[in-house]
């Protein structure tokens, strides 16, 4: 790790020379932790929502902790590339990682050789939650989720569903199985809502699922939400039912969260968790994340840990039911 840090310093100096970036060392360092810059690794590519929340809280953490926060992108494998490396660093609180619930609760289950497990981390808190829904084009004959299920029962051609990730596909299968229409759908996968929404708007597929990015189109009357796949109702669409309201089980949310390697001392965890809670609730941060349709929702380390363990149990059951060996996407 030392080598990597040292190289990063060199790169930073280089960037400084070119006037492209600056890493400022603040003078008001507090006694004890932290004594040196803290690294935040982001499990998703630059410019996206995970990277944005990391950059934003880095700015705020620097104010609270008095040390520079270095945000580095380590994207790939739904955050698992980052998590695998994070599991191996020294648990001193100087290296943290931001990724989604799936990264910790789902990826270790499907990846045979994933070199990390859910227990290898110290969970420091949730940062944001999406507003996930099933949606259709506004001129679709299906007004409600029940319309969709009724029409699926008699459908001759398969209904085309756009999934965004293997975990979504798996959960979709569970829901359609509960409704008794599992084999009435064909499932395509798109990379992110930005790709899925045009497929629905252009009529290339019939049903979509989005974590929140699609809601702008709903407000403008181009798409229609059928049902929320989260526990709580949405402020913007108060009448929209949740899957739980309709009597279904499952489909937990896609929280973004921050964690470190297992074994970070309790007092350091406390300092970090406090600073993180303060950082995500800064009005500017809240406003920008609302723009991203990924609203801030902070939860304490204990709640986060409980949530992540319950999600992994849920996924383990789904995998047992639908089989790891069968191709999930088909």
């Amino acid at each position, binding site marked *: 790790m030392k080598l990597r840090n040292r190289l990063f310093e060199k790169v930073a100096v280089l960037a400084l020379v070119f006037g492209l970036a600056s890493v400022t060392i603040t003078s008001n360092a507090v006694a004890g932790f932290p004594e040196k810059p803290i690294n935040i690794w982001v499990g998703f590519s630059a410019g996206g929502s995970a990277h944005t929340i990391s950059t934003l809280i880095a700015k705020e953490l620097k104010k609270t902790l008095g040390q520079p926060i270095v945000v580095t992108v380590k994207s790939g494998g739904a955050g698992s590339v980052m998590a695998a490396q994070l599991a191996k660093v020294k648990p001193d609180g100087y290296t943290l990682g931001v990724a989604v619930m799936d990264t910790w609760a789902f990826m270790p289950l499907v990846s045979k050789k994933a070199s990390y497990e859910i227990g290898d981390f110290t969970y420091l808190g949730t940062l944001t939650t999406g507003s996930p829904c099933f949606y259709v084009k506004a001129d679709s004959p299906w007004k409600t989720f029940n319309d969709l299920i009724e029409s699926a029962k008699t459908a001759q051609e398969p209904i085309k569903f756009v999934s965004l990730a293997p975990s979504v596909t798996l959960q979709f299968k569970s829901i359609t199985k509960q409704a008794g229409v599992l084999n009435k759908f064909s499932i*395509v996968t798109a990379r992110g809502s930005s790709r899925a929404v045009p497929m629905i708007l252009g009529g290339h597929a019939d049903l979509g699922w989005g974590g929140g990015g699609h809601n702008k189109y709903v407000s403008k009357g181009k798409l229609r939400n059928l049902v929320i796949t989260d526990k709580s109702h949405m402020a913007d669409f108060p009448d929209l039912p949740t899957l739980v309201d309709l009597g279904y089980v499952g489909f937990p949310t896609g929280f973004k969260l921050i964690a470190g390697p297992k074994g970070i001392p309790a007092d350091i965890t406390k300092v970090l968790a406090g600073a993180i809670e303060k950082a995500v609730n800064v009005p500017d941060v809240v406003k920008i994340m609302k723009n991203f349709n990924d609203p801030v929702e902070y939860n304490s380390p204990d709640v986060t840990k409980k949530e992540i363990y319950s999600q992994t149990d849920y996924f383990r059951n789904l995998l047992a039911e639908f089989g790891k060996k069968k191709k999930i996407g088909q």
Partner: protein
Amino acid sequence: METILAGISDVITLTNILYILLGVFTGIVAGAIPGLSGITAIAIAIPFTIYLSPLTAVAFLIAINKGSTVGGAISAILLNTPGTPDATATTFDGYPLAKKGKPLKALTIALYSSVSGDTFSDMVLIVASASLVTFALKMGPIEFTAFVILSLTIIGAFAEDSMIKGLIAACFGVFLRTVGLDPESGTERLTFGVVDLMGGVPLLAVGIGTLALGEIIRQIEVRVSTAGEGISLKVSKNRTDGHASWKEYKRCLPTIFRSAIIGTFVGAIPGLGSTVAAFLGYNAAKSSSSNPEEFGTGKLEGIAAAEAANSSVVGANLIPLLLIGIPGNVAAAFLIGAFMIHGITPGPLIFESHARLIYGLFGAMVIANICNFLIGNIGLRFFALLIRAPSTIVFPVIVLFCMSGTYMIEGGLFAVGIMLAFGIVGYLMRKLRFSFVTFIIGYILGKEFEIGLRQTIIITNRNPKAMLDHPVAIIVFLMAIAFVGYITYRNLKQYRTNSKS
């Protein structure tokens, strides 16, 4: 109309113009340094734009993007090392002309063509984009897959000496892109248990290694074996060789115009990007020229064709970005992130919800083109000084930038190792005359191609008859087949005449 004027007047403030100037300058510098590229500059700049106004922020980032297309030509022409894949076609005639002692002539024609192509494509964007929404949405996975196949075929076919070798290289690129997690099932493919490979072989590491480092290794070999010929260029003292004249520019205009149309079209299709455009433009110029054998020897039209085409992608790329929210390339993906930070979701609704901002942005693009021209004109003379630096200094500096650039973008020493390995791959491909360019393009398009193809199979429900609902896709597929037929016929004819004589 009122919105348009309001939007344009929004952009004409001192702050905006200063940021655009700064952006263009940063872009040119970053584009000129192999291993850095406009993408690096945009990635570094994004966090700094969070607290700017949305218009200033996006104008700044687009100015960087525009500057980098001009900058990319500088190292391509002077050092024969394209900093980014899209400047590769520029090396074909740019470097030979520089070697003839006319590097400044090559650089100025590149600048003029670049700015002309860019302006053309901006005009198309400004005039047509609002009416293109419906058309853009009709481009589904099936049509996209067809376009990828057509462009891989065309580029493979024009690769150096043999179409078969070109297609092999392209397939190798596509194959290499399958490493990592399966996009649908999430299972690992070809990772051999290496965690760093779960996200795939890092894109920029492969690009920088194959294109920049591979060329450096080849040049070192040339220097060692010819006792120091390398990149030491002699500059002609003749004044007319120091710039491109109005007459020469006029001679290139038909080429520029053709390339600009090609580039704009390619830019409007998400995923193909400026590298594809540059090659299509270059090959179109070559095959419609009356003396195609002069291409590759330092022909001005060759430089103009490549530069006009790759720059005209920048404006047109905003068509899919703004209208359907799909980024046309990596730089555009960063721009989407920048839009989102400011609460603007690119997509079919953007002209309804953010019309004023979009027209302001168009105004900024025009201003950026003017800045590009001005700064470019001064910058070229400054960069031409580079060729005086001995290669014992230039090479190590470039290698350092390749390494640090890869580390910064991909975030890790693993990527640097991959970059070094692909430097060797790039060198071997040059020696064995496998087109490293088709390889890179296959690699860049590989992931979208795989997803598009799998989506196509599922959407058509494995029933070929469903294709009949997609006439555009059928036409494009037929074009690809016809193209292979034509090239095979041409090569056979050439083979026969050769064996007769």
